């Protein structure tokens, strides 16, 4: 086992994959400098810096993938996908179906997501539920360095479009760049085991669609992704002191959801608490409830999500995003019902 930061794990796994597969290229704004450590190892011709033209370079990424390349297209912040949504919604997600399964789009869209550093509601969204809503798109959200590398490897090997979301609180270079984290005068609630941790000595893919239990519990199953997993783990420790045994399931992949593991956990506890940094309405949290209902598993249910536009003011922002206190309160209420 080696120890790596979340960001280094992604780049290391990418380097590993790129050395083995010359079809993989990386394109996006500022990538020649952002990915300089990969450039130094793999040469500059596989890294294309783009103008601020998301609709053109993401749309181009779709057909480049159809024609034999394996592009990793970087959208600096997932909030900016709005500009290029058509490439995903109407093209990347549709080509396989429209071609009757004859043509694949092995495209990876890598983007940062998430909040907690005061950048406001146009730069801190999660949007994984919004993207996962579209049939044909796979959406992954790693929460540890080991999964960050393993899921990136799985993403570039996948034969269909994968949205790979990198939470800024876990990824130090982004937090430094966008949160001004270099300032000694500021601090952020960074989950330490997510930002840095053990990774395998040699990379192998973490299969898409496979959840993992981060903590076992008998009374309640908390389900989350990304930073929410770490908040849930902290809440679970606090709940233990109050006599509530809460398990934490890390989905790792938002779409497709690992239904088997979800059903198994909820069948045991009969209580599901969805913790989702994405918006509450019409999203992942509701999807989890629908799946459990459809499977006929009797369970109590609650959720802690982002309900409104994310505020710029730090204190309001902390209240808007799912936090440990809100998770503990929701869990206790659920147990009292």
């Amino acid at each position, binding site marked *: 086992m080696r120890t790596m930061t979340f960001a*280094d794990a992604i780049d290391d796994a990418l380097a590993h994959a790129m050395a083995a597969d010359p079809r993989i290229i990386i394109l996006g704004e500022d990538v020649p400098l*952002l990915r300089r450590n990969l450039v*130094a*190892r793999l040469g500059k011709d596989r890294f294309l810096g783009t103008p601020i033209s998301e609709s053109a370079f993401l749309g181009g990424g779709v057909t480049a993938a159809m024609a034999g390349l394996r592009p990793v297209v970087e959208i600096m912040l997932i909030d*900016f996908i709005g*500009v290029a949504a058509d490439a995903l919604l109407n093209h990347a997600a549709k080509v396989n179906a429209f071609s009757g399964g004859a043509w694949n789009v092995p495209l990876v869209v890598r983007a940062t997501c998430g909040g907690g*550093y005061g950048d406001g509601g146009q*730069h801190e969204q999660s949007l994984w539920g919004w993207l996962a809503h579209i049939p044909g798109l796979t959406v992954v959200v790693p929460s540890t360095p080991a999964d960050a590398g393993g899921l990136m490897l799985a993403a570039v090997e996948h034969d269909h479009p994968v949205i790979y979301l990198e939470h800024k609180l876990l990824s130090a270079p982004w937090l430094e760049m966008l*949160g001004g984290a*270099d300032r000694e005068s500021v601090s952020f609630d960074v989950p330490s085991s997510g930002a840095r941790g053990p990774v395998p000595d040699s990379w192998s893919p973490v299969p898409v669609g496979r959840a993992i239990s981060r903590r076992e519990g008998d009374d309640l199953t908390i389900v989350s992704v990304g930073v929410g997993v770490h908040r849930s783990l902290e809440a679970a420790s606090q709940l233990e002191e109050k006599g509530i045994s809460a398990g934490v399931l890390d989905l790792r992949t938002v779409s497709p959801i690992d239904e088997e593991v979800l059903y198994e956990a909820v069948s045991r506890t009969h209580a599901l608490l969805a913790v989702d940094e994405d918006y509450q309405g019409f999203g992942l949290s509701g999807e989890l409830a629908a799946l459990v209902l459809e499977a006929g598993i009797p369970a109590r249910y609650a959720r802690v999500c982002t309900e409104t536009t994310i505020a710029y003011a730090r204190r309001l922002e902390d209240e808007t995003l799912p936090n440990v206190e809100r998770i503990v309160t929701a869990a206790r209420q659920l147990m009292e019902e």
Partner: protein
Amino acid sequence: MQPDRWALYRHMLRSRLFERAVQQLWDAGDVSGEMHLGTGEEAIIAGVVRHLIDGDAMALDHRGTSALLMRGVDPVALLREILGRPDGLCRGMGGHMHLFSPDHLAASSGIVGSGGPAVVGFALAARRLRPGTLAVTFFGEGAINQGMLLEALNLAVVWELPAFFVCKDNGWAITSKSPSLTGGTLVERARGFGMPAVEIDGTDVETVWSVAREAVARAREGGGPTFLHARCVHLEGHFLDDPLLAALRRPLRELSEIGVPLTRSLIQPRGAPIRKRLRGLQSILGTLLSSYRDASRHSEQDPLMRARERLTAEPDRLEALERDVTAELEEIVETALLPTEATESHPRMAGEGA
């Protein structure tokens, strides 16, 4: 007609001191997230905004503070917004990238290029509801390759809208040199859509003022949109702690932070042949070096100093003006930092349609 040099300089100085205060508050950790200052583009903003009247609209980018100040927005409310206070201009919901003032018909966005569609809609409303008024948008040259901005240029022409497109070109889109990512020239592009376009030195406020006067007059009279390509500098780079500027200002620390992992990657087994790797390394160093050689990264191009030089013949008047503006700014900062009752009771936005 000649511009009022003293008024222009006053506006620019006021904006500069305001943003310097923001910079200090950011350094102190009182301002969160990214911070994009407009220091270096004050001549463009002042030269245009001085022509605006009530009923004119502004579509601003992530660097809108200066334009709002010059347009007459309450500086205390503005600073409090940047501090994320409930008594701020937008109740602490927006922050510096998302500043809104309905009274001034001024709206900002952190999405690059979105000022294009925004100015089109503002101009449409201006023509139908407030004849004789216009809409202006400010954006960086990085935005000029964004589809929605190009679509907006066309729409403004075919609808003959009272719109003014102002491009503030500092030559850099974060870490990328803009000409390396932009085909043709900007004025040729705008003219290709059938719009009059002018390229000027945007560090000279009087040049901006004169060109803007014509464009604004044309829009008010129903003569349609104009495109202004104004070159400028960003004294603080793309945002505070800009990685390229940091490498120039703290070379030992930053370069070792960059250099150590770079060297490690260079010698990793598996990957490109060494010749290719070295060429990759060369291009990275090239970017860092070209940033250093780029004159626009240096402060001789400071528009404030250029405006000030024209006033030194009257040293007493100049000194009085600077004393006056400095005192005003001190008072603004002091007032903005005063605790208020509202600071303690930040309203939750839930259920307010946020």
